[in-house]
C-alpha cells in the first residue's frame, strides 16, 4: 500500500511550522531558540573563552565544542537518563563538523567557543533543529561567519520523497529513509549528511536537492530571527 497522504496532512515538500528567535538566554554570549513542529531547541554560545585543560589548546586557532543534550523529560517514551549517551556524543561531533566550515576561529588561538544545545521537547529532527539554533546563536554571539548553516531532515517514506520527517513518519510501518543534512545556503555545500534506511541513488540525489532547497528557505527564517532582535 502506497503512502498516499502524510501523517499530519502536509504537502510532500512542506516543513512543519518554524519559529526562530535570537538572544533568548541573557547570560550567554549568543543564543537562539528554534522550533520546528513539536521539536524545540535552545542553543547558547559561550566564548571565545579560555580552554582548560591546557593540552587541549591549539595555538594555531580557537576550537569549537558542541554539546547536544536532551532534557530528561523531552522524549516521547520513558525518561531519558541525564548524562552523555553514545548517541548524544556522536550528534555533538557531527554538529561541530556541520558548523565549523562557516567559522573562522584563527583570531582566537588557544581559546574555545562552546555551543550548548538543549531540547525541552522533541519529535524527530532534533539534530537539524539544534544546528539551526546553534548557527543563529553563533551569529548572535558576533563571531565572524562566512554564511549561516541551515539543516533539515529529508527522506523517503514508502514510495514518496518527503521533507522534514516527524516521529510518526520516521517510525512509519513501511520502508523509510531518514537523511538529515546541513547546508551552507550561499554555496549549496553540504556540511552534514547521514542516512538511516534504504533508498536508491536516483532518489537520494533528488532528496538531497529537496533538502538544499528547503535549507535556503530555513536560512531566511534564521536571518529574520537575527534582524528581529534589533528591530524595535
Amino acid at each position, binding site marked *: 500500500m502506497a503512502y498516499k497522504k502524510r501523517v499530519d496532512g502536509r504537502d510532500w515538500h512542506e516543513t512543519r511550522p518554524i519559529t526562530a528567535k535570537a538572544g533568548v538566554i*541573557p*547570560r*550567554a554570549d549568543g543564543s537562539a531558540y528554534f522550533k520546528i513542529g*513539536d521539536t524545540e531547541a535552545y542553543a547558547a554560545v559561550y566564548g571565545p573563552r579560555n580552554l582548560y585543560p591546557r593540552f587541549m589548546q591549539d595555538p594555531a586557532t580557537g576550537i569549537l565544542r558542541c*554539546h547536544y543534550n536532551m532534557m*530528561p*523529560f523531552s522524549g516521547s517514551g520513558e*525518561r531519558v537518563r541525564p548524562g552523555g549517551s553514545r548517541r548524544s556524543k556522536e550528534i555533538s561531533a557531527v554538529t561541530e563538523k556541520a558548523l565549523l566550515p562557516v567559522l573562522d576561529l584563527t583570531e582566537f588561538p588557544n581559546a574555545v567557543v562552546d555551543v550548548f544545545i538543549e531540547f*525541552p521537547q522533541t519529535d524527530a529532527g532534533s539534530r537539524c533543529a539544534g544546528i539551526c539554533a546553534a548557527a543563529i546563536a553563533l551569529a548572535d554571539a558576533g563571531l565572524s561567519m562566512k554564511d549561516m548553516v541551515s539543516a533539515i531532515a529529508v527522506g523517503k517514506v514508502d514510495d514518496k520523497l518527503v521533507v522534514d520527517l516527524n516521529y510518526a513518519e520516521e517510525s512509519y510501518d513501511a520502508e523509510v529513509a531518514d537523511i538529515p543534512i546541513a547546508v551552507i545556503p550561499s554555496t549549496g555545500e553540504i556540511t552534514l549528511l547521514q542516512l538511516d534506511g534504504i533508498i536508491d541513488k536516483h532518489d537520494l540525489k533528488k532528496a538531497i536537492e529537496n533538502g538544499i532547497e528547503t535549507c535556503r528557505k530555513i536560512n531566511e527564517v534564521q536571518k529574520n530571527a537575527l534582524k528581529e532582535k534589533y528591530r524595535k
Partner: protein
Amino acid sequence: MNKEIKRHIEETLAKGMRFDGRKADEYRPISVQVGVTKNAEGSARVKIGETDVIVGVKMAVEKPYPDTPEDGTFAVNVELLPLSNPEFETGPPGIQAIELARVVDRGVRESKAVDTKALCIEKAEKAWCIMVDICPINDAGNLFDASSLATILALQDTRFPAFDGIEIDYKTRTEKKIPLHLIPVAVTVYKIGKHLLVDPTIEEDQVSDARLTVCATEDGHICALQKGGNTPLTLSDIEAMIDYALGQIKVLRHNIGVKK
C-alpha cells in the same frame, strides 16, 4: 574585587535600595506557565526576572523499596545546564546541583504534599515513581525559589499516563492527577552584612554571608529548612529570617495564586 562590591551592596542596602532599584523584600517580576513540554507528564516554567527554569515530570512503574512496600517513590534531580550559566560545566551533577535538588525535594517530601501510599499499585510489586527534573535555561540568581515553585506547579500539572498493568502507554494521558495534600512554598532569605533580602541577583548571591531556605505549608507550618553560606547565624538571626520568609511566602502565594 568581591569585597568592594560587597561593601557597595551593603551601603546601598543601608539606604533601603538595591542595584536594580528593588527594595530588599521585593521579588523581580514572576511569570509562571504550566504544560510547557508535551512529552512530559507534567511541566512548568517559572521566570523570576531573567532567571528562567523549566521543570518536567516523568512517571514510571517500578518495584517499591523493600522497606516501604506500600509506597510509590518521588525523586528530584537538577541538571545545572552549562547553557544557562557560564560557570556551569558539563559532567555529573556537582554539589551545587545536588544541594539544590535535595532542598527542593525536602520541601515537597517533608510537607507530605505527595501521598506516596496512593502511588502504590500492588504491594511490594508495583508502584508509581515520580521523577522531577529541574533544568535552568538562564540562571540570573535565585534558582532555589524558582525551582521550588516550578516543581510544585509541574506536580500539579501532572496527569498519569495510561497503564494496563504491564506497560505504560506514554502517548495516552489519563485525567488522573498526583494526589497532593497541600502545596508547600519555599522562600530563601539572604543575609549580607546585617541586611536581609530575598530574590538575589547573581552578584548579591556571590557576596552573601548566609542564606536560609524556608519551606512552609498554607497553614504556616515550616516543613523544611536549609542554611547555606559560610557565616554562622545566631538564634535571633534565624528567627528574623524565618519571620521574613513566612511573610514573603504569604505574598508569593497570593501573587502567584498557588492553590490546592
